[in-house]
């Protein structure tokens, strides 16, 4: 068997397409989730062609009018088209959430591998710090970071990324600790593999499968956190189009019954998060068919 990260990923993919023949519930959940994500990614990539108006255009039509033929989701108090803002807003949320998840996973996995593999005081201190951060409400920490870093796409991405690092750390460290004891790792050491090679070629490929599931669920969570931060007014300047920000701005007009300002952004956030969650859950059930046989 080949021990490389590429082989590990290839094995992962073949396992899941092989089991795709079994059209169970898990498979459908995965497919629906993937379709949702693709639809919104499509929306983000082709915002210019899909959106009828510019999201900044303050003269698209009458102020605060409900959904109609011209404005599919109505207009806001600055006469901007809500549907266009939704379409363009998908870019922001995808960018922040996915980037944050990537940063979290890279940092978390590296630290987890190192910590699990080296043991000793580095592992002890690392675990203690990570456990402390993990047990603390993530959103509150993200709020503190976002307030500290100030508004900006990179800043909010960092604020969101920081709170998920412990998740990857704990997962990968646990797995590293158990894989470390396997016979093939000892064999690798016996044939003279350096510690770095052992980590990269033997331990890392076995860690990828569960990490992939956690990654998708992480993106879903990152979406929720990003939207929460912008709803609270932290993290992004008002000039950037964002669903959470639209919710905050639309909130003021709720008592007068202008429901379309908050309904549509909220539905989009939920649907996008749901898409990623479904992919994650579907993946989890497909990759571990016997363990999760319920």
């Amino acid at each position, binding site marked *: 068997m080949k021990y490389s990260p590429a082989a590990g990923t290839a094995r992962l993919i073949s396992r899941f397409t092989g089991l795709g023949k079994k059209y169970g519930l898990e498979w459908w959940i995965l497919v629906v989730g993937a379709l949702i994500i693709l639809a919104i990614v499509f929306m983000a990539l082709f915002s210019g062609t899909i959106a009828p108006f510019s999201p900044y255009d303050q003269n698209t039509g009458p102020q605060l009018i409900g959904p109609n033929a011209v404005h599919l989701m109505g207009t806001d108090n600055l006469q901007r088209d809500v549907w266009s803002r939704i379409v363009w807003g998908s870019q922001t949320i995808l960018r922040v959430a996915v980037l944050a998840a990537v940063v979290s996973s890279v940092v978390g996995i590296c630290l987890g591998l190192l910590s699990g593999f080296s043991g000793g005081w580095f592992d002890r201190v690392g675990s203690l710090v990570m456990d402390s*951060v993990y047990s*603390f409400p993530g959103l509150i920490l993200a709020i503190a970071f976002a307030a500290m870093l100030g508004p900006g796409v990179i800043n909010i991405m960092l604020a969101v990324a920081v709170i998920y690092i412990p998740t990857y750390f704990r997962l990968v460290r646990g797995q590293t600790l158990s894989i470390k004891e396997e016979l093939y790792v000892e064999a690798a050491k016996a044939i003279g593999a350096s510690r770095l090679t052992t980590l990269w070629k033997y331990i890392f490929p076995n860690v990828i499968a569960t990490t992939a599931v956690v990654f998708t669920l992480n993106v879903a969570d990152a979406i929720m956190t990003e939207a929460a931060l912008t709803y609270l007014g932290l993290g992004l300047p008002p000039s950037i189009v964002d669903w959470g920000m639209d919710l905050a701005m639309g909130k003021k007009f*709720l008592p007068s019954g202008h429901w379309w300002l908050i309904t549509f952004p*909220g539905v989009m956030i939920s649907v996008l998060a749901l898409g990623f969650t479904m992919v994650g859950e579907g993946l989890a059930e497909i990759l571990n068919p016997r363990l999760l046989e319920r």
Partner: protein
Amino acid sequence: MKKSLARYVIIRLLLTIPMVFILLTIVFVILRVMPGDPVSSMLGGHAPEKVIEQKRKELGLDRSLPVQYVQYLWQICHLDLGESMIFKERVTKAIADKLPATVELTFFAMIITLFMGVFLGAYAADKRRSSRDYGIRLYGIVVYCIPVYWMGLMLQLIFGIWLNILPIAGRLGARTFASDFERTGFYVLDTIMARDFTALGDVLIHLVLPAFTLGIVLSGIFVRLTRANMLDVLKSDYILAAEARGIPHRKIVYKHALKNAFIPILTMMGLQFALLMAGAVLTETTFSWPGMGRLLLERIYLRDYPTIQGVIIVVALVVAMASLLVDVVYAMVDPRVRY
């Protein structure tokens, strides 16, 4: 030494200390690195140099960071969270004023979460592989993806504005005065103690929407957890024996099986506490609920460091205590987990 409960509690307590300590340090570092000078914003943009310097000295901000850090830790050991930079009040008082509101909200939200989550989960396990089971599982996944504040806004829209049957902001109506009955800050208790039942009604009706908002969103996790645990329990021999003895099915599922599946749920409650606090911040902003979450946000906008620090410390302590409590209860019930 025998694995006694006392030993477990002591070791667990000792473990909590470094964790809280690390969180305190993180908070300290975050706040000192925050951009924006609090002193000049406090005194207005055009204060003369000398006044700014003097204020800095007063607040102890002119000393080096390590010295400030030691001073900060020393203060905390004395349970002194300092004084607000913006208002003339002690941080501990500001927090003590708002804490009961948050506790009341989270308490009722947790009750709703448990009721909905546990019973739906048990029902789904009972009716396994039926369409109702799949429906409830779907509910479990979907509900977690709904942002808490959006749920709050939608419920406000439906029940507060379109149907106009529930209030959408605050803890009390315009005609009820807290000073009439306030004693502990927990309005439900206070109104009962003061025998003021109209006020109690007002308090409860103001609790409905915020508690449901927070409760529903967190119930999804419990639905899935309960369902998974119940499925395990329902396979056991003693359940089969109970059925053979002719005990009514409903009693088996909702009494015997549920009781045995309950322990992991209890542990999960402790772990979800952090989520509850995070959700509370968002719920409080949406419903103008005068609790600690809203206090935190207000003071972040104002750059009031001591209060921000104080709130985060209190949250860290509360979460640590909750998880400690849950672990101890679990160790009480299952001696195998003791150190």
